[in-house]
């Protein structure tokens, strides 16, 4: 294995395992409790009606897909996006901030190799987290005898990948542009949370519904996969975004100065009385 890739994977090893185990545990517990709580939830959602139910998912709680749509896949993309933002922001700029990038790039290695390794390790890490999380689904599902439900759920899992990789690449790009993973990550986190809220409310409002293509979270189609109505155009946009963001990250890293202030700056808030 390439020594740089090995090092990059090693750097992400701890985070990858703990995020994977954490999500797997959460999902495993959720699945394990499905038989006992599904009836209760179904009653509650019948009373709430479709519009309020839309806030927490469009699930049919008599099935495992519907149950997981509301209890896991409604928020898991945001939970995993936290990792994607943290790891994406740190992938390139983290090493610059730490000061180790100078020593690395002083070796006979190209910037292209460094950035490809960093972004590749990032994508691999997200894939491994999803694989570990999938184990948290598969193990309890064998015990509750719901194996026939795994097809759509597997698609929902796979659809995490383009969305989360796109989020990670966006975080990496913003961190490069601002020269700060905190600034870049904060902007992206704010956009994602706002999107999540508006996306959730859009089921109850026609205007918000019409703006769905604007919401970043719309591009995760996992919940739709559970209902069997994936909008593949959204998935295509995510895949195209990965290509564009990947190229943008590479070009920017090849051209810019290392470990100096970013290209973009947020306007500083002006305090009254300050000149």
């Amino acid at each position, binding site marked *: 294995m390439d020594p740089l890739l090995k090092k990059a994977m090693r750097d992400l090893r701890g985070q990858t395992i703990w995020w994977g185990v954490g999500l797997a545990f959460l999902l495993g517990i959720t699945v394990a409790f499905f038989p006992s709580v599904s009836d209760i939830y179904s009653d509650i959602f019948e009373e709430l009606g479709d519009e309020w139910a839309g806030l927490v998912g469009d699930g049919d709680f008599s099935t495992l897909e519907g149950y997981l749509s509301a209890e896991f896949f409604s928020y898991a993309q945001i939970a995993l996006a936290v990792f994607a933002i943290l790891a994406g922001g740190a992938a390139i700029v983290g090493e610059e901030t730490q000061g180790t990038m100078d*020593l690395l790039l002083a070796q006979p290695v*190209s910037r292209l190799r460094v950035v490809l390794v960093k972004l590749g390790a990032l994508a691999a890490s997200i894939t491994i987290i999803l694989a570990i999380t999938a184990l948290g689904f598969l193990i309890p599902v064998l015990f509750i005898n719901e194996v026939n439900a795994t097809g759509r759920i597997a698609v929902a899992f796979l659809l995490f990948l383009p969305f989360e990789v796109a989020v990670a690449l966006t975080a990496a790009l913003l961190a490069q542009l601002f020269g700060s993973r905190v600034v870049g990550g904060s902007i992206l986190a704010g956009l994602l949370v706002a999107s999540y809220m508006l996306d959730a409310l859009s089921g109850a409002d026609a205007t918000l519904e019409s703006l769905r293509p604007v919401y970043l979270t719309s591009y995760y189609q996992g919940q739709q996969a559970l209902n069997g109505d994936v909008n593949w155009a959204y998935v295509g946009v995510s895949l195209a975004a990965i290509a564009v963001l990947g190229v943008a990250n590479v070009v920017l890293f090849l051209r810019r100065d290392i470990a100096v202030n970013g290209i973009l700056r947020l306007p500083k808030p002006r305090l009254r009385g300050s000149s």
Partner: protein
Amino acid sequence: MVTDTSAIDFDGLSKTYRGGKRALDALTLTVAPGEIFGFLGPNGAGKTTTIRLLLDLIRPTAGGVSIFGQPCNDGDPTVRKRVGYLPGDLSVYPGMVVSSVIDLFASLRKGGVREVWVHELCTRLELDTGAKVRELSHGNKQKVGVVLAVMAESDLIILDEPTSALDPLAQRAVLEILREVRGRGSTVFFSSHNLPEVERICDRVAMVRQGRLVSIQRIEEVVSRRLTTLTVTLGEAPATDAFVGLDGVRETGRGADGTEVHLEASGEVDALIKVLARYRVLALESAPPSLENAFLAFYGADALPSGDDDSLSGGNDHSQTPPKHPTGV
């Protein structure tokens, strides 16, 4: 064996950072193969910017630089096969064991590192290779950096303030190692703000200030003209003109009773010692020359760059020419 005509060629190299800060202004100089070249200047003079440009970590806004004839800023990493580097503000992966760090960087050089030499370096620097980097003191981290810079026995070794965090014994060991690698044909480009250290090891020295090259001198010339500060306490107050007319000596002040005399001397101090020998000398203190004093010795206060002095632009032939504004002390 290095056969190139120049190890480093700076050609009008300039760098202005975003926001307008001009860090380096038209640096032109040539470093010959096989020499130890000191790059001297106070903090903020542009030394680190110059080195980061050399390594293609940042890109010039004008001019260019080449290493052994190969341009440095075209994104081609092959030139760095011939370069070893120690950053000034060294950071090494804190969670890694020292030996793993060495293995990682050696693996990036694909067989260009002799294990025996690495072992020898670690032994001479008394470096614990089994420790984690985060457990090391600042000085020991610096030793790791020295090993990483020197282990490939590169044709060019670039060091940014290499001994800044080291104790005197380790400093001596590092300077010995540098002399040794130079003896094997390596060129050493060495930035520092410590004049005595540069004097001990360098063949030539360039002085930079405010991003501009002030001069290039052979080290013998720097030593012969350096300004030493002396404080002499005598048994009785000497005559007011006792030190007047001594070549290279200037009296800068006296204590209240006139027995404590403050002097500045450049070059030989033989005449001064002979005058002092006429008195009963109770104490003699000598301070090493500061970088600021070195500038003053060469150029006088008015010659320090203020922005428009054409005489401050660099050129290799400066090493052969006398300073434009000798102090005349």
